[in-house]
């Protein structure tokens, strides 16, 4: 009985699971890629950047398929809107991650030695925020009561990232070895870029939180 009802929707479920897997990989590639950049491992960084491009393309393909199947399987209209909302906003997270890596590969900011641990920690916090969002999204589809727990972690890591962002910016502008304002502004620009995935993840989490409340029995 259960397999009869679920057979039609299993394709859609697989697509959604694959899409969430892609988002998870993106956060890991973002973190590892940035680590390579900081450690001057240019070739490895380029490989990760290529991986990110491939993941972004894969996410787009999956998003398109999910959209198509969402409409052809005639879900409850409200659920369809919610799923679509999650898929679309998660895509923005992938886009931001790719954009940051792209800008790093083009602009190649020269990050002073003593600021590198801060940048590295910031990228790790951004990645952690996305990973918690991924867990919240999985829970939304299968175990709704856990969504709020993961969303709380998203808020926690995003807040930590915000604090570190401010502290890093202060260090940049107080740095005695950086003579030019243009360099300081360039470094600040990348602090803002690296923290962007965590901001984006938080806004998806807020949306997810509302959807979860709506679906709670």
């Amino acid at each position, binding site marked *: 009985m259960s397999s009869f*009802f679920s057979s039609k*929707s299993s394709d859609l479920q697989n697509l959604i699971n694959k899409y969430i897997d892609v988002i998870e990989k993106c956060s890991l590639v973002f973190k590892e890629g940035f680590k390579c950049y900081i450690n001057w491992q240019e070739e490895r960084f380029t490989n990760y950047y290529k991986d990110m491009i491939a993941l972004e393309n894969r996410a787009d393909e999956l998003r398109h398929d999910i959209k198509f199947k969402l409409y052809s399987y005639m*879900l409850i209209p409200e659920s369809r809107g919610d*799923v679509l909302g999650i898929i679309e906003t998660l895509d923005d997270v992938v886009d931001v991650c790719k954009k940051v890596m792209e800008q790093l590969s083009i602009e190649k900011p020269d990050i002073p030695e003593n600021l590198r641990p801060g940048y590295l920690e910031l990228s790790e916090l951004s990645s952690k925020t996305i990973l918690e969002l991924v867990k919240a999204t999985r829970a939304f589809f299968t175990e709704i009561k856990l969504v709020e727990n993961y969303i709380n972690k998203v808020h926690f890591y995003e807040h930590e990232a915000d604090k570190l962002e401010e502290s890093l910016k202060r260090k940049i502008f107080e740095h005695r070895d950086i003579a030019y304002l243009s360099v300081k502004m360039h470094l600040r620009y990348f602090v803002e870029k690296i923290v962007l995935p965590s901001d984006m993840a938080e806004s998806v989490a807020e949306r997810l939180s509302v959807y979860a409340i709506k*679906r709670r*029995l």
Partner: protein
Amino acid sequence: MIRSLIFLSSGAFLGWSLGANHAGIFWGTAIGTKMVKFRTAAILCSIFVILGSVIGGGGVSSTLSQLGTIEHLAAAFTVALAAAVTTYSMSKAGIPISTSQAVVGSIIGWNIYSGFGVDYLVLTKIASTWVVSPVLTGAITYGLFKVVQHFINKSKVHMITLDTWTRYGLVIVGIFGSYALGANNIGNVMGVFVEANPFKEIELLNILVIDPTKVLFFVGGLAIAVGVATFSKKVINTIGNNLYKFSPITALIVVLSVSITMFLFSSSSLHDFLNSIGLPALPLVPISASQAIVGGIIGLGLARKNVDINYNELGKIVIGWIVTPISAFLICYISLYFMENVFLQVVN
């Protein structure tokens, strides 16, 4: 025959109004979630209301007959008309209507007018269901909610699968609810006409014999179906469905509870089975779906631990228990006087 049909019109009007007002309870969420189009819902609802009326309508009608055996068609017409007028006025006043309570008031009106007196044992049995049916619906909703909640929490079913189940569930429950509505409420629509039934036995191809009561119930079921087809869409669209406020799963639970309650109060086989094993059975009495649903919503609130009891709505139900039968009694009594003395019809 034309005279008979004219006299049946008050029952048909009751049926029409029942169909127009109640289809939304059982099909509103299925239509709202785009599982079925209104047209499909109306066809399914009509078919199963008629099936319920013809197959399962006997039990509730016999209980009403115990309260008063109306043998003259003109009297049955007046009783049904008084009930219809009362139901219409009550619903205009925003009180959750119970056709059953109006019919009972009307039959008592006829009893008193005809000097037969009232069988208080049967009356108590019927009146007790007015309280029991919302309470039972609430209890069933509470239990079903807890079971579904436990299942969803433990099974980790994917949201997409759950949605698919819910959508199929809404249609299945809509069908079950339509059957239960026909089986339970046909007593209100045609119950008073059973003893004065103008129809004869119908024999189809020398194989199938349909007894006159089933023909009468078929006509009543048809009247409900016409109400569903002609006016329920407008009722769903204009008045709306309170259940829209809930998620499809919780709406499904409440609708299923109302359907189960209606079925329990109309299934002769279940009634006989429980009696045969020495268990107390629920009386076979037409109940009000609109009042049962209020009980269901309260049961849901208790189960979710966000008890937001609408005392205004509860108050209206309690007012309905008293005002509806009394109004129907008075309207019926006065109408019978006119029917007998002005239109010169035999009413007792």
